[in-house]
């Protein structure tokens, strides 16, 4: 399988496409060095070879963490951002939240942990959303919940398919009950979008946990994941403490979930664009290009 990924037909089209796109940003993923140690296999791998494979390891296929922007850059022909600018709010007046929020902005260079866009894959118009775990671990607060809901409404109104990439540490603790309620808000947005009979593709990436797993991410018409992604509701440490024992091998990994019936498929990042394109076509969405 992995060999195919390297040498298959799709890689050619991806490299071709890459040239056409803006180059994916490499923020916080592979530092400005020629070689990088892979978290998957521990090998030193060249930065350029990793980048060429859309930030996957040439040795072991480990999928490096990427930003929401890099995700859009590698996936879409072109796009425009549809998010509103986030304004800081502190719904339960949580002490120290503002400071922590500012720190996260500074550290990540992001305004919030979500990017929502309208764009094209091979000329097919769609809405795409990606969480970004470099900001507050992708935790879902009111802003993210609201933007997810709005993206579904935006897509529904325009009869567009929607594609959502999740990565999240769970709830934004500092927003307390308001964070919890975003699970209901986003799930309801999925339900209402479903009434328009348009396609919702959910793709879980490493890691997707807590309230995001237990809401919109698990409600796709088609649910995909990247190889090796950690996906679960409860945290591994809490489970270990509760059961007072070891966790089974591969626990809460994408492959584990697929084998237990919770994922439609696991898709290598290099095949993702192709895969989604095929899904869109099969659901009757057509290219706008003449």
């Amino acid at each position: 399988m992995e060999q195919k990924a390297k040498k298959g037909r799709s890689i050619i089209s991806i490299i071709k496409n890459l040239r056409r796109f803006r180059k994916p940003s490499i923020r916080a993923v592979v530092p400005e060095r020629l070689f990088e140690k892979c978290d998957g296999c521990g090998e030193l791998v060249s930065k350029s070879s990793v980048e060429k494979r859309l930030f996957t390891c040439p040795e072991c296929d480990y999928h490096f963490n990427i930003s929401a922007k890099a995700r859009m850059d590698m996936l879409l022909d072109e796009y425009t951002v549809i998010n509103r600018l986030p304004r800081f709010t502190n719904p339960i007046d949580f002490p120290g939240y503002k400071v922590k929020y500012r720190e996260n902005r500074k550290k990540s260079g992001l305004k919030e942990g979500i990017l929502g866009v309208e764009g094209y894959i091979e000329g097919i118009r769609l809405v795409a959303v990606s969480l970004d775990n470099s900001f507050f671990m992708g935790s879902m607060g009111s802003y993210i919940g609201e933007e997810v809901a709005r993206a579904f409404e935006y897509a529904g109104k325009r009869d567009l398919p929607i594609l959502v990439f999740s990565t999240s540490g769970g709830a934004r603790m500092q927003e307390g009950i308001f964070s919890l309620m975003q699970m209901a808000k986003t799930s309801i947005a999925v339900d209402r979008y479903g009434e328009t009979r348009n396609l919702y593709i959910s793709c879980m990436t490493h890691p997707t946990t807590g309230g995001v797993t237990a809401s919109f991410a698990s409600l796709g018409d088609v649910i995909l994941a990247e190889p090796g992604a950690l996906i679960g509701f409860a945290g591994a440490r809490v489970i270990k403490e509760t059961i007072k024992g070891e966790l089974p091998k591969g626990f809460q990994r994408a492959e584990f979930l697929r084998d237990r019936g919770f994922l439609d498929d696991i898709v290598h990042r290099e095949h993702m664009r192709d895969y989604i394109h095929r899904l869109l076509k099969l659901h009757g969405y057509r290219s706008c290009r003449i």
Partner: protein
Amino acid sequence: MIRELEERLKELEGKEKNLRLLRIKRRRIISKYGSKLIPYDRVQLARHEKRPKAKDFIENIIVEPMFFHGDRLFADDKSIIGGIGYLEDIPVTFIGTNKGRTLEENVKYNFGMPKPEGYRKALRLMKQAEKFNRPIITFIDTPGAYPGVDAEERGQGEAIARNILEMSRLEVPIISVFTGEGGSGGALALSVANRIIMMENSIFSILSPEGFATILWRDGSRYREATEVMKLTSRELYDYNIVDRVIEEDISFSLKDFENNFLRLKRAIVEELDGLMEKTSHELVLERQDKYRKIGGEL
């Protein structure tokens, strides 16, 4: 402070044999303590082993309850109890997360922590309610969804997500009552309702105070501090418009002393239900979904 209050009441009961005087003195002590309760005391009350559990609430509010079992898929989760009965003269479906009083009972009920089969059992009963046009009343007292290997293997996240979505679109009135502890997505998965009622000394939060302190400060022993900042009491949540109604409680440590609380709750449920039953199924769904759509949306 709760232990102290309990001790004083016990002491009084041993000393005062005149029933009328006992009642007066009891009230005096309780009101003295009641006005000083901090959020941590409420947490202790919500979790108190002598506090009536969901099953007690159901048996005191629903007439002739019939308890049903199983999710028709995998198992019967004992932490979820549910079935049908009358609320006054209205047939309703009721669902509760049950805890025990003793260790043995708690093991049986898994400390009120449902697994996916529990959420799917609840959903099955709720769909049945919709089919027969019965209102749904849920009684929530859970630390949260069970964090275990088997629960994850059977899709805890999917089960919760599915319940939230399906509950939001059920075409019958739904009233959720928080009777004790309401923790995390595990509580939300049973409380996407037209009306949320909280007993005065119940709590509702994103996570248990212990879990919250562990995640935020990497120190679970700071749970007391967590209760001060989490905004998990009924009054605080009422002020945030998360909760529609708070039922005033006489603090009590026995089923018998809880009678007035049950009565007040029952009256409130009937009143809310009367209003909801006049709405069309379309209105019920629209209003329920809109309510959640708006939370935290004033950004």
